[in-house]
């Protein structure tokens, strides 16, 4: 009993690394370009599918496929930002949501039309990585791939941290996120910054897709849940915080693996409920602050309406 609980805890933390990678891209777009890309999950699946084609149809080694797909997806991010999202953003805050929702549906069905509904996985192509692991005392078992994923997540977030702190592009990204108008007045071309952010976000989505394909089966319709998980990690960890996505990812991973000890159904539900609890808490807190504290909130029922 306690053994499986301990295992679930460890798996949950490691799973959080994967979520952090996916969430970091979503968070970057949200923080810098100021919209939630509803196709983020579908782009992740696109990255996975491209890598799968390279490996299965073209016979490339996995490392080469990954090394090609990630920059390719970054280029796609740059291009889509320039050709599609910029236009949508210029037409108001509603349009990017509508456009990316449509894009997501297009990607899902396009991939389904091209590749069919067969589930695919890179698991068979990465040798013993997919099943090897370490048995630790206390009946604990840790897989090599989850540990590798988690390490990669730390490395990716660390690199992003350094990029944002130490490079001219990073400073321009942060400045644009904080005050786009003032950044322009300092000579920053916000549109280029947005394109760069989109390129990074798409690259991270592709990396997430490859990692997903290594540990699980991928179908053309696997994207939406990934978007939801990424969004949950971003909100739980605090919007706009890089390391927050890791914390959010770990909390989400823990909720899912702990829920998973009951059933697969409870696993998903647990993650969703944690998100709704965090959002609910935030709404209540803001509401309380706006009305002069918690005690005032208790007294007044509902918002002010006549």
């Amino acid at each position, binding site marked *: 009993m306690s053994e499986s609980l301990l295992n679930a805890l460890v798996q949950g933390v490691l799973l959080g690394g994967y979520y952090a990678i996916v969430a970091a891209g979503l968070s970057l777009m*949200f923080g810098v370009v100021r*919209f*939630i890309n*509803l196709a983020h999950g579908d782009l992740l699946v696109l990255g996975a599918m491209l890598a799968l084609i390279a490996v299965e149809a073209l016979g490339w080694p996995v490392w080469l496929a990954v090394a090609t797909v990630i920059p390719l997806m970054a280029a796609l991010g740059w291009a889509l930002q320039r050709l*599609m999202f910029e*236009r*949508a953003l210029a*037409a108001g*805050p*509603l*349009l990017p*949501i*509508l*456009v990316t*929702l*449509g*894009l*997501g*549906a*297009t*990607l*899902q*069905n*396009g991939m*389904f*039309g091209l590749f069919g509904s067969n589930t695919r996985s890179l698991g068979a192509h990465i040798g013993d990585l997919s099943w090897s692991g370490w048995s630790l005392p206390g009946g604990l078992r840790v897989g090599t791939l989850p540990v590798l994923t988690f390490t990669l997540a730390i490395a990716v977030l660390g690199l992003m941290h350094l990029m944002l702190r130490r490079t001219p592009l990073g400073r321009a990204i942060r400045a644009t996120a904080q005050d786009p108008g003032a950044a322009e007045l300092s000579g920053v071309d916000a549109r280029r910054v947005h394109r760069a952010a989109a390129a990074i976000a798409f690259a991270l989505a592709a990396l997430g897709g490859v990692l997903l394909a290594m540990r699980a089966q991928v179908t053309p319709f696997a994207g*939406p849940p990934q*978007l*939801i998980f990424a*969004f*949950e990690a971003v*909100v739980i960890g605090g919007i706009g915080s890089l390391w927050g996505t890791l914390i959010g990812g770990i909390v989400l991973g823990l909720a899912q693996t702990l829920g998973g000890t009951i059933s697969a*159904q409870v696993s*998903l*539900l647990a993650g*969703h*409920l944690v*998100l*709704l609890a965090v*959002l*609910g808490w935030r*709404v209540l807190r*803001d*509401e309380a602050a706006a009305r002069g504290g918690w005690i005032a909130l208790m007294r007044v029922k*509902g*918002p*002010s*309406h*006549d």
Partner: protein
Amino acid sequence: MTEPHLLPMPKGDRRLILSAGALLILLALLPLVAPAQAIDKLTQLGIYVLLAVMWNLLAGYAGLVSVGQQAFVGLGGYAMVRLVEAGLGPFPALVLAPFLVALVAWPLAWFVLRLRLGEFAIAMWVIAEVFRGLVMFDPLVQGETGTSVLALNAIDADTRRLAIYLLSLVAASAALAGSFVLLRGRLGAEAQAIRDDEEAAASVGVSTFRVKRLIFVAAAAGCALAGTLWLASAITFQPRTGFGIQWTVFMLFMVLTGGLGTFLGPVVGAVLLMGLQEAFGDFGAWYLFGVGALSVAFALALPGGLVGLWSARRGREPLSMRRRLSAGEG
């Protein structure tokens, strides 16, 4: 200086309403002559119109883009399943279920309407997933398997078809007429003020929350009604289809191609979707690919949709909900 007052309804609009009334009577009499298959298609069109009008109310008039309206479509179907199980007749259950869903949407509004734009969109999606997850725990639904409203099979097939058709006709026209009255009244003016400038509207005493909640709850009930109508014609309730994201993708398509925030846009979009479905529906995924791609193309190139295009040509939007004052500069 004369008191500014609202301009009377333009002649073209009156003619449009009169012909819509005539069309309604024709549609009601249609089952006397039309084949069963055509009636089924028109039932589906009615459901599409209902859905599109609801989503347009949300996104076009209240500025609320929800990616989770399937929450209410599915919940409506589930409520009907439960009501029938409790011994209610299928048709009373079909009508009652949306009211139950509205009772769920009312408290939910307090929470979700306080979220920011993009957060609201995805939070609604997550809520739809939560509803789906919860419904699947119901032993009656048996997880993914779903359940059938067998009581419907007890009714003679032709009678059932006719009843569902007339109900969907009533539902679609009631949604149109209801939103017409709603938007022409005080609520429409308030919604317009909020859409133009939310802070300014709030500063002159428009309760943005009250307006948005009314629209949110109405749209939830409307989507639930679409869900029960759908269930009545499909008989089988499955969580995966009932709570599927495809409902929202269709609503998005209809509203974007027809014209976001135009009164007639959803009708035009629904007819377009129905036409595409008839012509290309057999292509399966590629048809849905086209639906998604067309939504994106319209959003980027023609954000006013077909009605917007028509209005730009004619210089006036048919049945516009925008108020115009006769005095003062525009």
